[in-house]
């Protein structure tokens, strides 16, 4: 059934896969995720246990949009994992996140407020690509020694539009299952695809951190875009490799299943990554729509 129909015909969720387990929800008399319309998010970035600085950057922008179309949430969510020498990676990730977000606000969010849509508007995937290319140019020019991953979700209504470069990831968490949306632009990911390494070997491969595509490395850059509806009671999870490199998908899933709120889920994910060693910086953004 269509999500909108579901939303408007029943007025509340019929599935039980909420972040609030039914028993607790009942105890707290929580209508859980269906309280009004808007984003329900959790976010955190952490230095981890092994690094001297946090080179990850996260960015979030959440708004409501009132238009003839209806009330739609609009959001921008970015995870960027910087790389390069001291204070280069963090500058690169920060710059990339800001530059991309600014472009999206200017060319998608602001025009989105106007009602008349036409061929004159930049198509969304093009705009997303432009945003990442602009971020790429900025990093190439301003911190040539640095680079960054960039995974950005622009959420309009129930639809998430993703732009992605590098090995940060976007997942969809829905009905107790975690499904990876993005593809890592890493050497080991390719080796796994080719059957030259197993997923397990990849976890400890000496070159597991080696990317073949990142923002700020070359003047031209191929940007992956994805389209992902966020179903009712579904959550979009964006994270850096400091999370998925330290926690298995199963661990992530059970943490999400147990969590009482997205914010608590984000914190718990990071705590677990740290408990497992915290080898790298860890960033998490969780986005649901109530």
């Amino acid at each position, binding site marked *: 059934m269509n999500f909108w129909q579901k939303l408007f015909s029943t007025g509340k969720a019929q599935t039980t896969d909420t972040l609030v387990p039914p028993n607790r929800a009942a105890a707290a008399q929580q209508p859980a995720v269906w309280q009004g319309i808007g984003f329900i998010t959790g976010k955190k970035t952490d230095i981890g246990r092994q690094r001297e600085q946090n080179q990850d950057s996260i960015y979030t922008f959440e708004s409501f949009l009132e238009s003839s179309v209806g009330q739609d949430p609009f959001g921008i969510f970015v995870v960027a994992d910087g790389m390069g020498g001291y204070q280069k990676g963090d500058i690169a990730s920060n710059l990339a996140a800001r530059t991309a977000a600014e472009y999206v606000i200017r060319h998608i969010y602001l025009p989105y407020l106007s009602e008349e849509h036409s061929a004159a508007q930049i198509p969304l995937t093009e705009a997303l690509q432009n945003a990442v290319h602009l971020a790429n140019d900025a990093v190439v020019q301003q911190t040539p020694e640095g680079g960054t991953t960039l995974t950005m979700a622009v959420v*309009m*209504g129930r639809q998430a539009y993703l732009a992605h470069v590098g090995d940060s990831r976007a997942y969809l968490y829905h009905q107790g299952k975690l499904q990876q949306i993005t593809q890592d632009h890493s050497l080991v990911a390719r*080796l796994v695809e080719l059957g030259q390494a197993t997923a397990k070997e990849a976890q400890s491969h000496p070159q597991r951190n080696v*990317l073949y595509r990142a923002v700020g490395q070359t003047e031209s850059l191929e940007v992956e875009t994805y389209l992902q509806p966020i179903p009712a009671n579904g959550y979009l999870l964006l994270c850096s490799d400091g999370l998925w490199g330290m926690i298995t998908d199963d661990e992530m899933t059970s943490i999400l299943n147990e969590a009482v709120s997205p914010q608590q889920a984000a914190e718990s994910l990071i705590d677990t990554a740290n408990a497992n060693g915290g080898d790298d910086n860890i960033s998490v953004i969780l986005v649901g729509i109530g």
Partner: protein
Amino acid sequence: MPLETQRLQNLNTNDAANEQILPKGAILQNRYEIMRILGLGGMGSVYLARDLNFTKVERLCAIKEMISNTPDPTVRKTALYNFEREANTLASINHPAIVKIYDYFSEGNRSYLVMEYVEGQNLEQIINDLDTHAFLDEARVLRWGIQICDILTFLHEHKTPIVYRDLKPPNLILRAGSNPEQLVLIDFGIAKAFQEGQKGTMMGTEGYSPPEQYRGIASPQGDVYALGATLHHILTKRDPKLEPPFTFHEAPLRQFNPGISEQTEHVVMKALNYEMKERYTSAAQMKAALQHALKSLTHSGGAHFPSPTDGTSQTRPASQAPTVAFGQNVSPNAATTVIGNQAAPSVRDAPNINTGQGGVIAIWAFRAEDEIRSSPTMGDGLVYIGAYDNNVYALDAKNGSFVWKYATDGGIASTPFFYKDRVIFGSEDRLIYAVTSHRGKILWTCPTEGKVRSSVRVDFEHAFVGSDDNRLYAINAQSGRVIWRFEAAGPIRSTPIIDTEIVYVGSDDGHLYAVNMQTGKMKWKFRTNRGIISSPTIYEDLILFGSQDWTFYALNKTSSWSIWRTRTNQAIISSPTVKDGIVYFGSVDGNLYALDATSGRTIWKFRAGSHIVSRPAVSDNAIFFGTNNGEVISLHLKSGKERWRFQTGGPVPSSPLLGEGMVYIGSTDHNLYALPA
């Protein structure tokens, strides 16, 4: 003072850099005087230096510097040991095409390798210096490949066999002034000993190394792979460093450089196999294959292409999209695919007329009294088709025998819609008709104020159809009663589609409209720059359609926000068909496009050479459409390669219908054809 500040900063930066780089005139080991820097590497620099032991003659050498920044003394010691061991091995190699090692030494945290200075450009520089559309001469590159095989064979069969492991264009120098040309292999990747221990997310795959090397396997077949990758880069100019690793199999050479012979492509692709055992077992074996390719090239193949002598042949630009019909062998008007390296078929004997691949012969044909521009539909074993002789015909789907016809007062441009016990269609006489599907008896008519060329779509018991009176009608399918009318600013000829209670339709006024199915009120509109005749289709959250402004659009169906778009070279009238996440449509530019529906990325493109107005029909493994020069074409769905063609006697704007193992399609030659699918 801003100016001074700036200068100061620059100075500082230079100082920082200079710390690492040896200045001109610096002397190492009391023997090597630095003259200038030749290049910057990841681990240090390469210098041009003079050997002061030679006082009478100027003996130049190249000195490669490796700076170890590892703080761990054990790691550093191991690196140094490995370096010295490898340098020792290399010093014992004596081959004219391998750079000579004269000396090595370490000073502090820096290690140095003193080598023969080879004057010339490396192969990467040579590729980068080519004009955008120019490629290196194939025969010349093959000769290089043969030389490299010789060098590799020498290394592999050395008394202590050496696997080179780092073959790539920058490590091959074309010795300046050599005639015949001589390549010299430099840089034995010795620096790798110092590169361990880096942490955190980082960039850099070489792009030329075989997959097994990342499992620690170094073998002669690994060098064969790297040679394949090197030749691939040189011949195609596709830089593997900028591509996902191990994607050569997705990039056959001729896709980038159509001038390459099939044999050469075969040799290079074989070397690039993921599985070691599928490659040539030795460099010697690959050499034989390259020699064979060179021989057949100079004997026959060379004559096919204007063969350049200066090594910078002007070839067609490499196409970005994997186009099926590549240029070089085809006369400009021949709308045919080139398979393999066959001689150019002339238009006259092109293998396409009625007896294309598969030799398609019509199973049956039904002749109307005038042109058929509309498309067939099917129901209860009958095929329904409208013609410009004002009739809608019902025919037996199996054998084409006449069952009934219904005459209106105008030409039928629209496709009938089969619904329960009736067929519903519009006519240029301004009426919409519902007749019984079995006998063609009238059930109702519904008047509009313009010719009806839009086709009917029935959903939720209502017929939705546009008219040249600018209106979209919602009609009760049972009674023929108009429920609502929606007014656009121009004729509506596009066929509506209904999804989650929204009716989407295009108009000649250039807008795509989304109209509430219950109320007939507009939800949104999206303006393109020309009229929209193409009928929209839905895929997931997207609405997909073409416009006569040459552009194909994908909008979010809820918000009307444009998600992606692709521009063709002419108007788009053909309606899209989606199957398995891929959208197919034709353009007046003569191409049939297959694009990824969510991203707009080109999967393939087929050049039919004539306007495509027809909406493609898709089966599990094939696609069918008509063209303006009267052909019905079928392609393999996956590859976009041609299956067959069938020639009719007039343009085919009609869209094919699949059923009963057949393709039904009308032609302006008055016939409705049933072809084997």
